């Protein structure tokens, strides 16, 4: 009889045990190669999503060369979306208070309206934030061209003490323990651990999509819109040696990917520019030609943001510029200048404003 009691009790215990196990039987994706693999899941529920990023093809605008995209960072819809989220996320900065977009404002052609940007510690930089417009065609980045790719470029501001002043260890820690990012990186790159290389890859993918070719000038060249008399006069000044702007701001890209000394200063230079990278004295005072697309909204101007308005910029070229040993021979009227009339200067500024692409700067 006692035996029977033990048997009953034992059976009850076993049943209880089974009952205890039942509530922790999680259902989910149980396939460990799926991007949403759940290691706690016991029951497969058919929810597995497998890595298959969606290729994104850049449409090359008329008059632009093919875009050179690094072979180890092909464009994908998922990578671009991730890059856009990272670009706007303050998680990348040391104190969680600043994003890339804080100093690269879309409304200003992805540049800063301040002469110099202020970092998280209140320190200010010494060059005006570069625009990010058609940057996928840059053969070098920064005013001195020290980064050859957008991936390399993106490495810098995040750890620069004058800017976002973070460490990559912190960035990786924050992203890997985040609620969304591990899945988004898995989706974009099929990786289980987020590292700095993939952060800059995603940002670079997003930046390559920042293409601006829908300005009034583009529509004029497509016979869709007419320019005013003043804008047309400016167009002629710009594109002939009368204004001689087109030699550096060339092609539909309005830049030549080269470095020039445009006669801003006499020597000695406070900023050696390109020579800081090449250590070659013949590069002293040379800076990368910026695109003029959306130039109306990307004030202030020049590498050091010294000019607040386009009128001041035109005045500089009209004055002819200052002599230095590396001044570009294209500045052929040093000290004499272009000698434009007031009307011609206004026409040139009117023309420059036809390069604004309202859709691109987000005001449409």
């Amino acid at each position, binding site marked *: 009889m006692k035996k029977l009691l033990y048997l009953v009790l034992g059976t009850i215990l076993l049943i209880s045990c089974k009952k205890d196990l039942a509530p922790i039987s999680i259902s989910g994706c149980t396939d460990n190669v799926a991007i949403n693999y759940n290691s706690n899941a016991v029951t497969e529920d058919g929810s597995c999503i497998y890595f298959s990023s969606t290729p994104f093809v850049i449409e090359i605008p008329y008059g632009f*060369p*093919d875009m050179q995209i690094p072979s180890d960072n092909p464009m994908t819809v998922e990578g671009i979306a991730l890059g856009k989220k990272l670009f706007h996320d303050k998680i990348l900065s040391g104190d969680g208070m600043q994003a890339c977009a804080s100093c690269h404002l879309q409304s200003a052609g992805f540049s800063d309206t301040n002469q110099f940007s202020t970092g998280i510690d209140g320190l200010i930089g010494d060059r005006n934030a570069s625009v990010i417009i058609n940057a996928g065609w840059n053969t070098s980045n920064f005013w001195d061209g020290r980064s050859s790719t957008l991936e390399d470029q993106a490495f810098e501001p995040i750890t620069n003490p004058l800017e976002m002043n973070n460490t990559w260890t912190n960035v990786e820690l924050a992203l890997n323990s985040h609620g969304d990012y591990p899945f988004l990186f898995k989706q974009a790159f099929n990786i289980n651990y987020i590292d700095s290389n993939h952060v800059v890859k995603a940002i670079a993918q997003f930046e390559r999509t920042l293409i601006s070719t829908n300005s009034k000038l583009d529509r004029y060249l497509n016979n869709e819109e007419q320019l005013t008399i003043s804008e047309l006069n400016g*167009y002629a000044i710009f594109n*002939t040696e009368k204004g001689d702007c087109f030699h550096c701001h060339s092609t539909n890209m309005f*830049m*030549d990917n*080269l470095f020039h000394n445009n006669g801003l200063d006499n020597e000695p230079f406070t900023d050696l520019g390109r020579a800081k990278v090449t250590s070659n004295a013949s590069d002293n005072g040379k800076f990368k030609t910026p695109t003029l697309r959306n130039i109306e909204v990307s004030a202030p101007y020049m590498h050091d943001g010294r000019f607040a308005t386009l009128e001041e910029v035109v005045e500089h070229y009209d004055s002819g510029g200052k002599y230095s040993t590396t*001044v570009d*021979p294209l500045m052929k009227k040093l000290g004499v200048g272009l000698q434009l009339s007031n009307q011609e200067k206004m026409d040139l500024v009117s023309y420059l404003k036809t390069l604004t692409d309202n859709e691109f700067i987000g005001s449409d």
Partner: protein
Amino acid sequence: MKKILLLISAIAFLFTSCDKDKAKATGITINFTHTVSGAELMTNSMTYINEAGENYDVQTLKYLISDITLHTENGSSLLLDEVHFIDITDESTFSFTYNDVSNNDYTSISFDMGLDTAKNNSNEYVNEDFHTTMYWPEPNGGGYHYMKFEGAYNNDSTFYNTHTGGTMGGDYSFNHVENISLTVDNDLGNVSANINMELNNWYNSPKIEFSSYGMGIMMNMMMQMDIQMNGATDVFSVTIDK
């Protein structure tokens, strides 16, 4: 054993034959050289003097040579390169090699300075290195600069810009033909042709003064014609090294 030796010999012979076949191909390297009054060009050196008596230096020299072609007596030709861009700051542009010159007796080499009308269209070479550097705006005729030759004259802070191209859509490119004697056969090995640009001759007979350039010569047809004439007369010369 004999069979094995025979087999090894046969394989060795096959490999040797392949090597001999490779050696048959003749390559021709085209070198671009630059002189001023006969001496090798030195940039940024205010030591040159043009026919008008102006001292000058050379800071920028970029130009396009097109349709570089070898010709035979019977009229057949071999195109070595459609367009070659030379930039004095980039040594890698000073030469190119055409690897497989077919056996023949070549009697002349020809090329165009700049681009002829058929080629000189806006965005024609949008993916070439020179697309942005040599761009020539539409309102001026479109296409590309043939040449950008710049520097200072008389003093360090006065500049000349000798920019040639299809001014107002006109064709100021010109053809240069030079007779050569080049017999390519199986045993020739590699040869080179040196195309020299004598820079000072751009400005001689008729003489051209930098001080008369004004705001530039890109829209100055008379100046483009004078430079074209000077160029076609005696700027280029070709020598062959076998």
